[in-house]
């Protein structure tokens, strides 16, 4: 196990010295505020800004007409709409003023007249529409399929068939930092400061909006106050908006959303409706699975099709199923648009299938863990995508869960509690869920999966890392420090990771898909190895260096492997390199292995690797109120080599906390397209008092492909929290919860259905 490295950004964040975008100040800075659509579907007829413009300190108003470049982006959300608004919150105009307060207050005075159009809020209704589409000539954007074997054969072979319909709700990232961006006009380029999840996409969209080449836009990352998949396309729009103002007035411009604005405009996780049909032999062997899904994309496309593809690929879970048929329809509605949110299509299908597995276990009168173990994928098994798998660790995860949760004893204890307290208000329950998740972008991903990292050794031996991946709070910077420190054998205190600046690093794609560690980590390995080679080359000219000798970089010292007596300090080695006029910059560029997906057949090599996990949850349900308390949550994850064990614990605990919100309380509630719980007083995330005891269990099955054997972890940790909780509640109530969230109302309704009282 590695020595502990403190998070490199922890001190600045804990002391309040970290600079977020809204903390940045520039001389003569002006401010912008949005005027947004108040109707869900329609055309803007007129914009009357007379009142707004007459206010003190107001400088002007900008509309799409002020966009020199692309304003209409087809199915993508425009920076400012030309005419058609598609959800309550679409940006129509910007009011510019000398102060933020003046801009915000004047924005409220802008009067918009609309020609309303019929709006649609329900996916099933939207699919049926024969006219008045949101985009193009159908509200169904696409149907993505996976077909493995012949599902009807699978059902014929089955002794038991179980069908269930499940649904998941719309939730949001709820990062503590709302979106904020500053654009600073420079003579030959535009400088943008913002918290970007996908910095190079933000840069591209700003360039397209301003109608300039990408080298005329420089994005410098501010500290990111939480992303969880947000601050992606939303940030491209916001950065483009401030850049427009900065260009028009030739002054720095800032815009920061209020919490309400952030909730109104920020993308959400796709709500799903899923119909399952699953077949099994009497002994529990799975024979066939049919999954029919509808995803609510909201008003614009963004990454909805890619999210759906991941759902499709992962819909069979970590199980061996010979016949699988999955179809997912991506459907537009006149509501806030959906996009990536920690899991990118995994949480919905993980919830669905894990609920269905418990339902099937009940039909088979089989233990839920035994059913999962019976069908758990093994090395050499064929995945539902047709891919032959290796490095499969789901069985190990399930067995670790069995052991750490004291599975059988726990079940017995709970059964006897419920028997002994039958007249009391509480029921205990225990539920499990299992996970497999494709690493990084995959074959249906957002582009070619590559990243670049530079590592520079300075003359004093200190090191700077330049990375194209964003630190969004996940610990990406510390991960890179770990890798460089391990490979060069130097202390982590020598190393600093610099602020992401698109002028100095190559386009490394988005910070998504739990790809940071694998993709950027591998690029860091290559960069550090290049440095090692450069040092070795210089040292090889020394007399003591025998031909083909191998050097060991460890403890700030470089030694000959076969003669540890011979050594040179890292510091001296660096001096030698520079004294010979050589350089010490290392460059790493890593591309993920090529993957191919046959869209027609719905089969292929979807991901170069899968990660695995298993969770168990004990709940205490009050059958008089419907209130569920998490007693204990055991989260087993195979993380490969843990690059930083404390960070791994942190990721797991944070991910579980977020998943508890998805399971129990969180839901973005819309009425006729308008979000009614638009702040954190009514959008309820779990507090420290609500998360119970979280027990992270770390399995370290070395990854063949990850840097130093590591695997991605950011998203898997949230993905199977909700189903473990609802399976536990179902166990407590003897009635199956199949919809999210399991709030007071839903749980109390199930108390009546079950025989808990």
């Amino acid at each position, binding site marked *: 196990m590695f020595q502990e490295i403190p998070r490199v950004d922890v001190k600045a964040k804990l002391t309040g010295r970290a600079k977020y975008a809204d903390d940045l100040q520039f001389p003569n800075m002006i401010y912008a505020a949005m005027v947004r659509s108040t109707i869900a579907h329609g055309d803007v007829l007129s914009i009357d800004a007379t009142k707004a413009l007459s206010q003190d300190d107001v400088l002007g108003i900008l509309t799409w007409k002020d966009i020199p470049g692309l304003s209409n982006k087809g199915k993508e959300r425009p920076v400012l709409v030309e005419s058609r608004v598609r959800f309550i919150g679409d940006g129509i105009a910007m009011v510019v003023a000398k102060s933020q307060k003046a801009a915000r*207050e004047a924005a*409220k005075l802008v009067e918009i007249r609309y020609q309303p159009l019929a709006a649609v809020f329900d996916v099933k209704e939207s699919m049926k529409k024969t006219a008045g589409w949101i985009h193009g000539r159908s509200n169904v954007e696409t149907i993505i399929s996976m077909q493995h074997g012949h599902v009807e054969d699978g059902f014929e072979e089955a002794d038991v068939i179980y069908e269930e319909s499940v649904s998941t709700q719309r939730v949001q990232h709820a990062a503590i930092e709302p979106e904020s961006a500053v654009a600073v006009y420079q003579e030959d380029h535009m400088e943008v400061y913002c918290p970007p999840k996908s910095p190079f996409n933000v840069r591209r969209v700003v360039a397209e909006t301003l109608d300039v080449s990408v080298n005329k836009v420089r994005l410098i990352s501010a500290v990111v106050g939480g992303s969880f998949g947000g601050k992606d396309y939303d940030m491209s729009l916001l950065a483009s908006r401030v850049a427009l103002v900065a260009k028009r007035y030739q002054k720095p411009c800032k815009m920061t959303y209020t919490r309400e604005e952030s909730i109104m405009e920020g993308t959400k996780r796709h709500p799903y409706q899923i119909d399952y049909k699953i077949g099994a032999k009497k002994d529990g062997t799975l024979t066939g699975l049919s999954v029919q899904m509808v995803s609510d994309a909201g008003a614009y496309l963004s990454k909805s099709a890619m999210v759906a593809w991941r759902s499709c690929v992962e819909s069979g879970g970590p199980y061996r199923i010979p016949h699988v048929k999955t179809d997912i329809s991506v459907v537009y509605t006149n509501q806030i648009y959906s996009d990536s949110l920690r899991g990118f299509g995994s949480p919905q299908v993980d919830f669905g299938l894990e609920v269905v597995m418990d339902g099937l276990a009940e039909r088979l009168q089989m233990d839920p863990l035994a059913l999962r173990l019976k069908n758990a994928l093994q090395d050499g098994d064929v995945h539902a995508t047709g891919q032959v798998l290796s490095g499969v660790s789901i069985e190990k995860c399930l067995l670790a869960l069995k052991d750490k949760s004291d599975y059988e004893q726990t079940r017995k204890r709970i059964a006897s509690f419920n028997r002994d307290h039958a007249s009391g*208000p509480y029921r205990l329950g225990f539920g499990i869920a299992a996970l497999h998740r494709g690493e990084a972008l995959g074959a249906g991903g957002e582009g070619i999966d590559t990243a670049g990292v530079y590592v520079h050794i300075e003359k004093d031996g200190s090191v700077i890392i330049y990375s194209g991946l964003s630190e969004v709070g996940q610990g990406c910077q510390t991960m890179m420090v770990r890798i460089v420190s391990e490979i060069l054998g130097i202390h982590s205190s020598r190393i600093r990771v610099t602020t992401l600046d698109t002028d100095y690093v190559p386009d490394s794609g988005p910070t998504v898909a739990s790809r940071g560690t694998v993709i950027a980590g591998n690029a860091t390995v290559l960069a550090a190895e290049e440095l090692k080679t450069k040092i070795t080359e210089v040292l090889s000219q020394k007399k003591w260096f025998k031909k083909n000798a191998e050097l060991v970089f460890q403890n700030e010292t470089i030694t000959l492997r076969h003669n540890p007596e011979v050594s040179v300090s890292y510091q001296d080695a660096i001096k030698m390199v520079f004294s010979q006029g050589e350089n010490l910059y290392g460059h790493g560029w890593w591309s993920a292995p090529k993957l191919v997906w046959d869209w027609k057949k719905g089969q292929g090599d979807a991901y170069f690797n899968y990660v695995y996990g298993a969770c168990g949850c004990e709940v205490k349900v009050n059958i*008089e*109120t*419907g*209130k569920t*308390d998490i007693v204990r949550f055991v989260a087993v994850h195979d993380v490969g080599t843990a690059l930083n064990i404390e960070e791994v614990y942190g990721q797991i605990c944070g991910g579980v906390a977020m998943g508890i919100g998805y399971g*129990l*309380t969180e839901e973005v509630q819309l009425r006729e397209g308008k979000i009614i719980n638009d702040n954190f*007083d009514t959008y*309820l995330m*779990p*507090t*420290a*008092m*609500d998360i119970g005891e979280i027990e992270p269990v770390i399995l370290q099955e070395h990854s063949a492909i990850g840097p130093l054997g590591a695997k991605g972890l950011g998203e898997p940790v949230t993905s199977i929290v909700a189903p473990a909780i609802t399976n536990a509640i179902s166990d407590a109530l003897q009635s199956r919860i199949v919809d999210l969230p399991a*709030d*007071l*109302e839903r749980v*109390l*309704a199930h108390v*009546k259905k079950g025989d808990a009282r």
Partner: protein
Amino acid sequence: MNQVWIQCEDKNSLLTAIAEPGRVMIAGGTDLLINVRRLAPADKPAQMVDLSLVEELKNIHLEGNMLTIGSMVTYTQLMTDPLIRKHLPVLAEAASQVGSPQIRNRGTLGGSLVNASPAADMAPLWILLKAQVKLESFGKERILLVEDFLLGHQKTMLAPGEVMTEIRCLIPKKSVIYQKIGRRNAAAIARLNGCCLLDRQEDTVKEIRLVIGAATPTPLDLQKDCSGWIDKPWTIERLDEVASQAMRRVEEISGRRASATWKFPAIENLVRRLLLDAWAEGGKQ
């Protein structure tokens, strides 16, 4: 628009300050500031009078059986006060369930009563305890039962120029049960709450006081609905009767809204639970 913030350090200057029309008192502000934020600029109160420095309104004392609590006592103060913890621990327990530590540090008992939210955490307890509030204005004072003070959703008897200075009640002979149902375990607004006091001799009921909150605009006093029990033995049938009576009373007052699917059975369950727990507690001396 300029906003004026007036801070008073004693009761006299406070009474003078609030005698001026159009001024809004801030007694913690945990609800007020959120509400003000949502108002249009023109509707925001121009002048606010802050009560948080008036030390005279932060005392808790006991004389004989009479407990007097200053209106500017915070939830934190209430839940940590030794006198309260010893003589009327249910107040400390209820206070500990309010909001979050930050809200408990700022929020005050007087502020909450004047704010008159139907979901107020402590309100049912004040009704059960038959607590009174003292309202003072320049040169005048009056005392009202909390039951009479609260008129409806954010409506009270507080007249312009008046400030609530004290809450008082008698320490009951029997302990009081309090329960709150929220969507989470902290920073939660009560979906329902309620309290109960039950005195009994052996298996005979001597006194029942029962109040539930967050179901109706002001807390619903169910003492009369329990009166058929007095001097009679405890039966499960009567328990069910009172529980469904509570539900009917709520329906009469608030009607059957969308939330009723959960709320009505939850009210029945809460009433039953409060009575059962109070019955068990009532047997103790």
